C-alpha cells in the first residue's frame, strides 16, 4: 500500500513512468468493474467509457482552480478500490441525471416549477439508494447468519473498546480462543457478504475491499 502511494506521488510530481505504471496496472480493470456496474445502472458502454476517461484525466490533470484528483488518495486502502469507488460515484451521478431527464420528459410540460430547480447540486446528492440498499441487504443477511454470541463480542471489542483479554477472563479461557471466535466470525461475515452481493447483483463485481471502501465512503458522505 505504501508503495502504491509512493507511485501515485511520483506520478503527480511528473514521473511519466509512474503514471504509465498506474495506467497499465489499473485502467483496464477499473474500466471492467465500472462497465459491469454501469450496465446494471442502464448506462451505455460509451457513457461508461467517457466517465472513466474523464476520471483518468482528472486523476492526473489538475487545473488552476482544481487539484489533480489523485491528490486525494491517502493510501488508506488499495488504489484500485479507491478508483472504483470514485468512479462508481460518478456513474451514480450520471445515472441519476439520466433518470431525471427521462422523468422530466415524461413529466411533460405540465409542471409550473422551473425544471432546473429540480436538479440537485452534485455535492448535495445523497449516496445512491440502489448501492446503499445492495450493501445493506448483503451485510444484514451476512450478519443474520453469524453466531449471535460471537457477533456480540465483535461489537464489544471493535465498537466499545473491550479488550480480548477481558473477555477471556469473563469466559475463563485463553485470549487466543476469543481471538479465534472473532476471526472466524469476521471471516464468515466477509465470505457471506461477498456471496450476497454476487447473488443480489451479479453485475456488481465487487470484492471485499471494495465493499468496505464503499461503506467507508458512504459513511463519510452521510456524516456530511
Amino acid at each position: 500500500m505504501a508503495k502504491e502511494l509512493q507511485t501515485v506521488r511520483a506520478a503527480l510530481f511528473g514521473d511519466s513512468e509512474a503514471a504509465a505504471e498506474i495506467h497499465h496496472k489499473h485502467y483496464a480493470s477499473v474500466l471492467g468493474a465500472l462497465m459491469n456496474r454501469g450496465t446494471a445502472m442502464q448506462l451505455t458502454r460509451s457513457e461508461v467509457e467517457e466517465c472513466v476517461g474523464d476520471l483518468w484525466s482528472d486523476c492526473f490533470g489538475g487545473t488552476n482552480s482544481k487539484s489533480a484528483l489523485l491528490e486525494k488518495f491517502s493510501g488508506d486502502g488499495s488504489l484500485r478500490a479507491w478508483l472504483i469507488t470514485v468512479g462508481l460515484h460518478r456513474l451514480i451521478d450520471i445515472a441519476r441525471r439520466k433518470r431525471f431527464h427521462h422523468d422530466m420528459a415524461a413529466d411533460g410540460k405540465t409542471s409550473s416549477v422551473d425544471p432546473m430547480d429540480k436538479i440537485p447540486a452534485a455535492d448535495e446528492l445523497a449516496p445512491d439508494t440502489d448501492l446503499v440498499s445492495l450493501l445493506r441487504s448483503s451485510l444484514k443477511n451476512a450478519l443474520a447468519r453469524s453466531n449471535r454470541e460471537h457477533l456480540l463480542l465483535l461489537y464489544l471489542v471493535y465498537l466499545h473498546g473491550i479488550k480480548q483479554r477481558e473477555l477471556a477472563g469473563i469466559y475463563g479461557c485463553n485470549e487466543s480462543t476469543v481471538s479465534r471466535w472473532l476471526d472466524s466470525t469476521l471471516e464468515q461475515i466477509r465470505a457471506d457478504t461477498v456471496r450476497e452481493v454476487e447473488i443480489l447483483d451479479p453485475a456488481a463485481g465487487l470484492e471485499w475491499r471494495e465493499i468496505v471502501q464503499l461503506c467507508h465512503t458512504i459513511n463519510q458522505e452521510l456524516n456530511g
Partner: protein
Amino acid sequence: MQTDFEILAKFLARSGAEVEGRISDVPDSDAIELFRKFANGKATPEERARMVKLVDSRPDWIAALAEEIRQRRQRTKPKGKP
C-alpha cells in the same frame, strides 16, 4: 485507523433503521443484573444465551453491557497501577 467491522457497523447504523445508540431507554434491572453477572464471569450458559437474545433485540443496550465490563476492569485493577 478504523477496522473493517467498525466501518461496516457504522454503515449499517447510519444508512438505515439500525437502532444502535439511537434509543435512549436504559436497560431494565433484570438486564443490568444479567450484564453484571456476565461482566463478572458468573453467568451460566443459559444466562448468557438469554443475555445474547436480549441484546440481539436491543442492540442499543450493548453500550450498557460494555460499561459493566469497564466497571469490572476498574474494580479488579491492582492498586497503585494506573
